């Protein structure tokens, strides 16, 4: 079982775009170590050779064969104005989402 350090927690947090305080890092290091240690028991179980990973799909074999993609045909979607109504800082007149500066200082 891998042991977890504070720098591991910071690395994972960066992947998830979470900024953690020092107190959060300290607390999560202990909590995640306990949870992952508990979860590591899955690694001790043998998996039969004939097992297919698709068998884990909850709707495998269901009537109507769900999970297939529909034909890619254009059809109406939500009205742009209704969607932009919810968007923080949207430029509704121009019909855009907006974000702060991406490049440069």
């Amino acid at each position, binding site marked *: 079982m*891998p042991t977890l350090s504070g720098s591991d*927690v910071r690395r*994972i*947090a960066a*992947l*998830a*775009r*979470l*900024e*953690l305080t020092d107190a*959060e890092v300290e607390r*999560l290091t202990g*909590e*995640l170590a*306990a*949870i*992952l240690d*508990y*979860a*590591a*028991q*899955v*690694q001790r*179980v043998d*998996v*039969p050779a004939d*097992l*297919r*990973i698709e*068998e*884990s*799909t*909850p*709707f495998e*074999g*269901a*009537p*109507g064969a*769900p*999970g*297939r*993609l*529909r034909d890619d045909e254009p059809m109406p979607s*939500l*009205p742009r104005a*209704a*969607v932009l*109504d*919810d*968007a*923080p*800082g949207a430029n509704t007149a121009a019909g855009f*989402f907006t*974000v*702060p*500066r*991406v490049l440069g200082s």
Partner: protein
Amino acid sequence: MTTDPPTSATPPLTACEIRAAIASGRSSATQVCRETLDAIARVDPALHAFLHVDREGALARAAELDRNPPSDAPLLGVPVALKDNICTKALPTSAGSRLLEQYRPPYDATVVSRLHAAGAIVIGKTNMDEFAMGSSTEHSAFGPTFNPWARDRVPGGSSGGSAAAVSAGLVPLALGSDTGGSVRQPAALCGVVGIKPTYGRVSRYGLIAFASSLDQISPFARTSEDAALVLRVISGQDACDATTSSAPPIDAGAGDFSTLDGIRVGVPRHLLDGIEDDVRVRFDAALAELAGAGARLVDVELRHAPLAVPVYYLVGNAEASSNLARYDGVRYGFRANADRVADMYYDTRAAFGAEVKRRIMIGTYVLSAGYWDAFYLKAQALRALIRRDYAAAFSAVDVIATPTSPTTAFRIGERLDDPLRMYLSDVFTVPANLAGLPAISFPCGEGTSGLPVGVQLTGRAFEDALLLRVARTIETRSDWFTHRPPVRA
């Protein structure tokens, strides 16, 4: 705690009774709606089951139903509460999170459209653990919900507001979502019926995603007949959710509810170590009642079920970390002010609560390079083995009985500092989500503490109706479904 509000002696009406009273002219949608709103105003301050109540919208809808009653309206004038992760055009949909506190979805979830078409009145939105992550409703950003049976106790979770609202008689029906037991466990802890349908029975379109391969919208009711009624309305294929099945809607309204002759009930006794005494006593009473109705009890083994909780927390949190990546402040919800886009992401996501951050971290870890094989893929393989165990067991039995929860309602605050212990609340409920199977929880009396206990029956895929039939047969033989909590309408 303040003193308990006054309670009435007459039992609240069921959905079937409300529909009949309105259809016959003995009542009206408006009258039922006013009484419901009054009951919520009187009782909910003691429970905090609701986050939003749509007084004006509900009354306007009731008046419209009274003016122009639709011809085929199985839920005519029936007030329904919705967990606040089910999108409603007319009402906020916060998912119990600061990130969506101001969110007004531009569309209704498919279940909401179907409820409307059936004549139901959406009365309000109920409290929940943030993004449905929790087993107690204490992880709501807007404060906990209190259990109507004892207000120092949690109602369970994550759909605790919906469970408490139905238990207290504020509404006859409510919808929640069940990812690892989030409807069945609060149903048990609040003494009501909760049924998670087979995966793919009910559209997830408009349900705010937690773990997409596990989530299923699921109803609460006080009677199995009401649960059957609402399931028939909301189940069935939906073009907006590719995982819905073409199987016809769940029809459990009619049938023989006098006997369980020929029904084989499997009991996995090897899983029952460590349950509370109160739960064991009531579970044994439920088994005796099933046997008394003619069912045959058979020992079964679910070999990999003891691994269901770790498998669930690996698979579920992997999916959660992926689903919650969308909360970046760009398209909807909360946005933190920042000069640069990267800072906006971090500052916006700082608004997640502690439990949500914890789960995103676990999910990101198990999907990260170097750990994906050992954790995520291994958990998926075990998920497949858990499905195989059920397939083998269901060659010998028709349903499998366990307690719904290993304990009765625990005290508010008791497990907040021990996430792993909180996760173990889900030991009996997560296997059905992992296997995609239908499972119902219904009341089987109270323990010595006076708190309700639920029994869970799990069935074969698409045999949802059999679970409702068994529950209704027990309902006709016992008075368990009629027990009411001290805090009630």
